[in-house]
Every structure is written in C-alpha cells, then in structure tokens.
C-alpha cells in the first residue's frame, strides 16, 4: 500500500465552509461532508480547525468523525471503485470482480493504488440488483459486469486521466 501523503489545509477554506452553515455546532456532520468533498477525506488538521471554528472540542470532533463510516481519515484514490458485494451481486459473482481488482491493481479492499488513482471499496448494496454484479465509480453505475469488463473499465479510467493530464 502506498505511503499516504496528507494535503495542506487552508484555514480560510475551512472558515468558508463553516460560514456556509452559519458556524452552527449542529451542522458539524454537513461541514465535515463538505470538507471531505473538498479534500477527498477529512485531514486531521482540518478536523481541528473545524472544531476551533465551531467551538467543539477536538475529542468530540474525533468522536463524530470515527462514528460515521462515511468519513475517511486517510487520503483516497481519485476513483473509488465501489464494488457491490450485496446478496444479488454476490450470487452473480461479485467476489470475482473484487479478486480481479486486487490482482490487477495490487490493492486490498480499503486500500489505494500507489499512484493514488484507485481505491477499492466493496459496498453492501447499491440498490440496482437487476444489474448485478455491479459497481459504481464517481457516481456512475456500471451494471452486468464481468472480470474482463472490470479490467477494461479500469483501463478506460486510467486513459482518461492520462488524456486529461496531457490537455492540461
């Protein structure tokens, strides 16, 4: 697994996010969601700054952060491969999809690739059992997958990134 490198957090960005919710203590979850949207995860420094702005002790902030599985404390890949391992997908071979990703990208569930492009995240159910086995990447659902289709999806995402970088 790749060594994680944390991002630099700007106090002004955090203040802006908190401002959107009128610095309300009760909005702490939404604020953290926004922070995660911005950085891909919730950096420790950001957590402390949010606590300072909303006047919530660090220990409470950390309690909230670790309570919800939606929040991540470590940087994550650009593409989160949400592979459904729910009942229907499982029956139709979701296990094979997960195995293929592990083999192809050399990462275990929950881990990032070294180039920080992919994160493998098996999820319980994406709610489209008719399309089983399925996966979701960046909000787009891919249904009726097979191990081969999974690989070509990964390749396609890689190419897109390379292309993007070139145009930049």
């Amino acid at each position, binding site marked *: 697994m790749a060594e994680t490198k944390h991002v630099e957090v700007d106090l002004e960005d955090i203040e802006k996010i908190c401002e959107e919710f009128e610095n309300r203590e009760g909005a702490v979850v939404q604020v953290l969601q926004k922070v995660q949207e911005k950085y891909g995860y919730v950096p420790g420094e950001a957590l402390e700054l949010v606590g300072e702005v909303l006047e919530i002790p660090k*220990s*409470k902030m950390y*309690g909230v952060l670790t309570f919800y*599985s939606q929040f991540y404390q470590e940087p994550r890949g650009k593409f989160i491969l949400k592979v459904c391992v729910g009942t229907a997908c499982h029956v139709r071979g979701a296990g094979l999809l997960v195995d293929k990703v592990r083999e192809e990208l050399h990462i275990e569930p929950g881990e990032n690739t070294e180039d920080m492009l992919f994160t493998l995240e098996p999820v319980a159910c994406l709610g489209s059992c008719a399309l089983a086995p399925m996966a979701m990447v960046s909000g787009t659902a891919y249904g009726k997958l097979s191990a081969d289709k999974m690989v070509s999806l990964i390749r396609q995402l890689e190419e897109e990134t390379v292309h993007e970088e070139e145009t930049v």
Partner: protein
Amino acid sequence: MAKVTINGIEVDVDPSMTILKAAEKAGIPVPTFCYHPRMDPAGSCRICAVELEDSKKVVMSCVTPVADGMRVLTESPKIHEARKTNLELLLLHHPLDCPVCDCGGECPLQNMSFAYGATESRFESHRNDEPEDMKSDVLVFNANRCILCGKCVRICDEVQDVHAIGFINRGFDTIIGPPLGKKLDCEFCGDCLEVCPTGAITDHFVRYKYRPWQLEKQQTTCSYCPSGCQMFVETENEAIVRVTSQEGVGPNEGSICVVGRFGFNHVQIPERFDTPYMRSLHRLVPSSWEEVLPEIASGLNAIRKKGVDRIAGLISTRVPMEDAYVFQSFFRKILHSNMIDTGARYSFMNAALPIVAATGTLRPLVDHEDILKAKVILVVGADPVSESNITGLFVKRAARKERSRLYVVDSEAISLSSRAKDHIRVLPGGEQIFLEVLSEEIRQSGNLGAEWISRKEELFKNWNVDPSAYQRLLADLRSCETGIIVAGRKLFQLETPVAGVESLLKITGDLGWIDRPGCGLFVLPEASNDLGVLMMGASHEWLPGLMDSRDPASRGRWEETWGSRLAYGPGGGLEEILKGIDEGKINALISLGENPIGHFPPGSRVREILSKLDMIVSIDMFQNELSDMAHFVLPASSAYERSGHLVSAEGFVQAIKPTMAYWGESLPDWQILDRLSHAMGSPMGVDSAESVMSEILRFLPDLAPSSRNGSHFVGGTGEIRLATPVASADGCAYGEMVHEGNGLSTKFVSPAHKANRESVSSRYAQWREGIKEEPASPYRSIAGEGEFVLELTKSLFHSGKMTLMDSNLKKIQPEGKLRINRQTARKRKIKKGERVSLRTAYGVCSFIVEPSPAVSEFELTFPVHFANAEVLALFAPGLDFSSGTGAPVTHRIRVSLDSQNAN
C-alpha cells in the same frame, strides 16, 4: 414531596430525584458503574437496575425519576438475574487479567462479579485484544478492560472542562482515548484514572508496582496550592506509591490536580538532605544533630548578647501553622528579634496587608459554595485553574452548570476565558487602571469627574479595553443579586499592587457586598499556607492572631499569655533584613525553606550582602543557592512526613498527617527550633505539633479544624457504589457528625471558616472612611524600549521550585518554554521548538519557543518555576521594594526578541 417505598423503607423525597438518590437517602446501597454524583447520569452500564413492585418493570435507578407512591425493590430474584446477565455481557470482552491488573483488589467490576457469581458466560465471542495506548507519558489506556461507562470522558468534560478524551469509533469497536491517535495532551489531573471502575486507565508512574491491599492509606491535606484538597497518600514500606482522592471527600470533592496527584516523588530521592551539614574549611561536611546544635546555639547566643533584632529569620509559607507559630515565638521570645519574614512577601503580602487593614481578617467572606451560587463572577488578575485548581473547577462549574455570568479581565486567555460571557482583554499591566476606573465609577454611581472621564477614555483607547464589555460588566456588578470577585497572583504583581487590591476592596464595599451574604472578594493566596503562616504572626508586622506587633497592647497580651517579656526590637521584613545585613546590624540568618537569592536578578548584590553574615543556617530539603553559602544546613521533614494544620483559601483549617517516617535524620521545623532553644539554654519546651496546636487554639479558638465534604457526600456508609467497606479515615473528622431527620443520613457540622461579616463590616467602615479619594494620577506604565512584555507566570504542572526535583512532574513538564502568540510567531517565521533570544538593557537570554493562541500579541510568558539566574538577568538588577508592602518588584519587563540570534 413524593413518598417512595424502597425495600419496604418509606422515604419522602423531592420529586425531581432519581430512584438511586432516594435509595441513598433510605440508606440502601445500589451498585453502579457509570453513575457519578458530580455528573449528569448516563445510564449506560445498566447495573443499577431496580424493580418497580407494581408494574414489575426493571428500570435503571440512576436515570429514572421517582413518582409519588412508587414502590421499589433494589434486590429481587429478577434484579439479581438482570445484573448477573449484564455482568456476563460486560465480561464477554473484558480480559480476565486481574492477576496483573493494577485495579485488581479495588475493582468494582471484580467485586460485582464476585458478588453476583458471574463466573461463566453463556455467550461466545472473541475477547478484545487491542494493544494498549502507551503514547502518553502519564496515562495508559487499555481498551480491552474498558466497559465504556464513560465516566472518564464525562469527568473530563463536565468537571474538568478539558475535553481531552472522547469516544472513538462505534459499536463493538468503541474505545476511549485522545483524538486523532495523538499523544494525550491535557491538564493531567488524573481524575479519569480515579473514576475508572476497571483497570482501563492506569498511570505510567506506578504501573505493576503495587497491590492495592498492601498499601497503607492516610488522609492528609495537599500542601502545594491553597485549595486545601483532601487526598490519600498510599505507602508501602515507608515509601509513597501513589496519591488518590475519594469521591466527595474534602472541599475538593474528590478531584485533585496534577501536582497533588503525581508530585510526591521528590520527597523520596537521594538528593534530599538526610543529615545535618556543617561548614568546615569552605566545605559542607555531613555532621550530626549532637554536633551542630551546640555550635549553632553558641553562635546565636553570642549574637543575641549584642542586642535586639540582630538575627533574621525567613520562613516558607508551605509549613504548617504550628511551625510558623514556633518560628515566631523562637525569634521573639528567645532571639529577641522581630526581623522575620515569610515567603509570602514576594507576592501575596501585597494583598494581605490591605485586606487585613480593611477587614481585620485573612479569612475570606465567601467560599467555593458561594462561587457556585454567585450570579456574577469577575476573575481579574488571576488564573484560578493553575493557581488554586479547585477554585478554578468551581468557577467553571458555576459558569457552565449554574449559568453564572463570568467575566475575565486579563491580557492573555486563561482556561476560564472560553467560558466567560466576556473576556475583557487589557494590555499587559492594564488591570491596574481598569480597576481604578471601575472602582471610581461604582463609587460615583457613574457621575465621573472630568479627570476620571479622561482616564476612562485612556482605558479604552490606550489599553485596548472594549467599552461595551466594560459597560456590561459594570451593569452586571451593579444589578446582580450575588457577586464574587476572584483575584490572584497577577494582581499582586502589578506595578502598584496595593492600589489594585484597594480598588477591589473599595468595589466590594461600594457595591454593598460586605454586608450581603454570598458576595465578596475571594483572593487566591500563592502557597498552601500563606494564610496560616501569616495568621501565626510569622512576619514582622503581626503577632499571632494578626495583632500589630508594634502595638504595646497586643504585645502585652502575648507577654501575659507566654509569661515572659517580649524583648524584640522594631524589626522589619525582607527589605529591612537585607539592609540590616548590609549595614552590619544583623549578623545571623536562619532560613526555613527560603532562598532569597533565587528571587532577585543576579546583579542585585543579594549574594554579596548575605556573605557579610557571621552565620547562615539553612533549614531545607534540597540544595540551593542559600544552602551553598550556609554555615549550617539542617535537613527539614517534608509535608508528607510531619503533622500540622494548613489554612486553605476558603479559610478551612485542615490537618496534614504523617504518611511516612522522617527522611533520614530530618526533623520538622518546630522540633529543630525547639532543640536549638534547648541548646541555647533557653528551652521553649514544645512537646509535639499537637501541643502547639492546642496552645494556638487556647488563644485563637476560631482556628479550630474545619473542612467540608461534597454536599452529596453523607459519610462512610453513603457510598453508593458497591457497598465494599471503606476504611474510615482516622482522626480526620472535622467538627461533629450530626444525624439528620430519620437518623439515616448524617452530615458534618464544621466550625465557621469564613470571615464574620459583622466584625468585618464595622472594621471596613472605619477603613473606608480613612481612605482618601485621590484624584486620578498618571499611570506609571512599564518604561523602556522593547516590543513585548515578558511576564513570569505560574504553571499548572509545577508549584514553586521544589517540584522541579520531582521526576513525575518533570516528565510532564521538563522545561520552561517561552510562550508567544501563534500569529506573531507565524508572522516572524518562528517555529515551535526553535530557540530565540530576548534582550533587555540588562541582559540577554535564550529560550525555546512554544506558540500559543492564548498569549496576546503584546506579551511573552515564561513559567516562573524555571526562571533561573539567566532568565532573571533580563530584569533590572537592584533591590527595588514596593512602598507600603516591602515586596520586591521584578515582575514584568519590556523585551526585544531576536530570532536571528537563535542557534
């Protein structure tokens, strides 16, 4: 009132009470893990289950309110089963490592399992095997043993208001610890350690070093700060193993701070003097009492013959009242000298003199209970949390739970500021002008004279005071039902401290607070027994009972009492002592735990002056600059070894008890002085500390031992944890136990500890008339160049300089760091841990920097405990004493900061 029947016993209770509280009132113990009398109930451990007889329902007694006619069973087959099942569930994950667990033997979980026989579990699950969190130097968190009662998290939130630890994760994975996987960073009070009902929190210092049942336990009073905490010193083979507190016991109600809980190690290290020393050929050589006493005695006798006031004495204010009493009588009766002074001279004396002049007493008008009830609290020139920790806890509780309106006037943010309605930031040293203007405005009911109006404008303009916050404070002070002003160390160190304290006294009187119960001024002394030592007449101004030492009538009264003529001269304090030595009028100095050299900048000639003495006797525990030049060094016993009484900030007279044998050949101060008097041929004949106390009480009966326990605390039987017998604290009863109502509950009735309002009132009126209302004088600001004001502050983790010898406290705070405003540091590109140098006209000194958001951008602070000669070299050398109180002035100075000079 609601009538509730518990196990057939009928009690009348307030309908807002919980079943648990009602059971307590009925004298029936109910087992609990997560309940704590000082905190809101959580209802998380489910062990306090009780059965409602009518509905057959099982409810949690700690969270269920009573109802009229309720019939409750605290023990029944159903309840037994419920508790047993609950224990089975708790023991699912809890490792059965009791044989190696520090808590084994005093563990409520172990006791409960024993009581309910929950030996085998019907459930199968894996045991937790999280590695222990060993990152902190102080506490170890063992998540496996944790039953998630949450008491540690709640005491840190609700009582300490520190929020250092919290719940992490969810469900089965929940653990307790500091946030972000970091090292624990807190006040290290250890209250979480104390309340933990299992061995989930242990401390590094004594882990695996004891079994609780092998320890001897002795209740005593903490001798660091003036809070007067009751603590339990636990020893094994005459060595202190740990210090604990007990829920509800003492004015501290079961909390003690870091210094009291962990700062006991310095009294049992080889560096301590264990035998008398005598100077021979410029070297101190070990000797014996038999050898040194006649030597000292003949020297003192020779000097005494020369006349009065020839021998000076200094005494620390950490010694018990008894020793201070013997000290002053030794000097006045035997040595014919009134050249005596105390360690309070350096700061608290600045408040003590005006307070005694105005009120005739050093006992406060208000105590911690009044702080809780006060509607408005003004904290000015004090950081109660670090100066008198328990006072700090009560102010926090008043602001958070009782909704008192708290105002903090300070240049920097103290830990109370976040709870304040307004934190009125003044520039460093601006407390002076702030109080003067406030006092005048209150006196004149707002109709300020022209001079004062310009003064007030100066306050807003030049001292950065927020006018609207000032107005809010003024309005609140005027209109509040009950109000208390808390002042402390910073105030004593103003440029003109007497004026500051007098302003406070005027405010108190002009608001009508002197005659109104619950209102008043609460001044925090600096050391544990400033009050007691001064009350015993250990400074030149006062005879015992705060009677004027120069007034023939007071003198006559004590001459009658002691049956001997007091032949002492006019005497004097530190200022006159140093001057007398310099002029050759004083030839000997006896110091009990004091070291004047360490208080003055190195160029101040103090060492040179002291070297003129024919004889220096240093009675101390550790080597210091004075003992280095002493002719005789005598080993003193520590507060953990001797007995006596201390007077707390609240005015309680509480006992310290010997917890271990005298270290080596050391003796308590009174005994050293008594032996010395025998050797001199004029024996004082003091038998014991107890006999001294009874002599004191004969003439000052108002100093009878007094104390207070937490209001929820009802003596040994009312412990509403598991009814495991608690050894009664022998001989520590203060006042009388009085049975109340049905005889089931008891309460302590303690002698009065607060000042008598009537006598204060008449004395105050006289004083107030005598005070001239002077027109506004231009404020003397700190002159000189420089961008910052350097201030020496009290650290939470140390007390005086002695604790620098303590290995435990040194681990918590090993060195002094210069605190600088975080933004300023960022602007000047100074990073944490870097070295900077400070420069004044007098010297240069380098410091390690610690950026902090609490410090203002005008200020730099450094813990006074670490202020050695190098640091003091920044201050103006010389013997500058404040007029009126004779206190040395070296507190604040303007400095320039060079980050380039860093190396």
